[in-house]
């Protein structure tokens, strides 16, 4: 399993800011391990969809359903880990079949 780099986590933060148009937030303001939804940055499901699209476009990884989404979108670190683990892989179908 590949390791998550600082550089990748920085890029994930940039993607969040750019994709969500968070004009008043800088990369340094986002804590790598802080929750992104509810508390923390206070993102919601509409933001989640933006991030799903951003990750597909930028890294070619897809989030097949809400359950995976909940796991992946816990923090910047979990997003970066998901990219490292899934880049270049086929993702399971959305209907739950393997």
């Amino acid at each position: 399993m590949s390791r998550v780099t600082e550089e990748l986590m920085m890029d994930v933060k940039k993607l969040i800011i750019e994709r969500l148009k968070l004009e008043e937030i800088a990369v340094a303001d986002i804590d790598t391990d802080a929750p992104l939804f509810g508390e923390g940055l206070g993102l919601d499901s509409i933001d989640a969809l933006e991030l799903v699209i951003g990750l597909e476009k930028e890294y070619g990884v897809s989030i097949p359903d809400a359950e995976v989404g909940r796991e992946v979108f816990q923090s910047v670190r979990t997003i970066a880990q998901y990219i490292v683990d899934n880049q270049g892989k086929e993702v399971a179908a959305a209907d739950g079949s393997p």
Partner: protein
Amino acid sequence: MAHRNAGRVALCFPGQLSKLPDEIGERSGGGYQLPHLFFERTWEKAGFDCSSFFFQHEEEDRYLNLKLQVASYLLSMVSFDQYQRKGGRWDFITEHSMGIYAALAAAGAVSFEDGLAITKGIGLILEKVGEENPGGMAAVIGLESEEMKRICSDAAGDLSVANVNGSRQFVLSGDATSIDRSIELSLKRGAISAQRLTFNTPLHSPLMESITGEVRTFITDFAIQSPHIPVVSHWSGKPLSDPDEIKEFLVEELCRPVDWEGCVQYLLSQGVTCFIEMGPQNTLTKLIRWIDRDVQALLYGVRNLR
């Protein structure tokens, strides 16, 4: 507020809030004590005591939607008043769902007091429907239009699309069982999120047709004027201008879906380059971001209430 471009500006009045914001909730110490003229007027002129209304704990759950509706109206009007006093300009007024009442008041089609009375009156009729015949609404994010239609037919109950908020943002409306089923189906078919909204009525669906008579009777006596500027309604951006047409809209819209995407597209076609949301949450701002990433969409929040 500075305008960074010379395009046209649309003020957007959002529908019902998802929760009571702090400005008006527990921490404020009472609605009419809030130092804004509108809160005083609700008490003095409309016989509406915000303080006791928002703090009736024993009935909190029962009237949650009514409270949220009234809070949405008041806070949108406060935003609008502050924007106006700061010299903000606008070319269009538009609205989403229950945002119509504040939009009409902002456009001068009804007085502030009548707007509040209409919000409360229709809210009470909706509460009654919810108690007699419970239904609900669910927001589904991530699936496309065709899949939403399939889910409505597969749920095998009274279920329909109530809001088209974007190409992958929808709200469904229906009887309680169908709504639960639609959430299950949506998640199974890859929605990034599917959750019930606070509504206990199937708003913006044909199930509301049973109350059109009652709403029409309630609306009849209100004095409605032609708006100062066009109110672009949530049906594919059809501008409302005639008072009778507005009255009919207030009845019909409860039974028909909101087409927010169509409304935003219409405004974009009219040269709008800046959308400003009036209220405490940035719901519409985020939906506009999805519809057109290049257009400016921002929130003019409620400031300095205390």
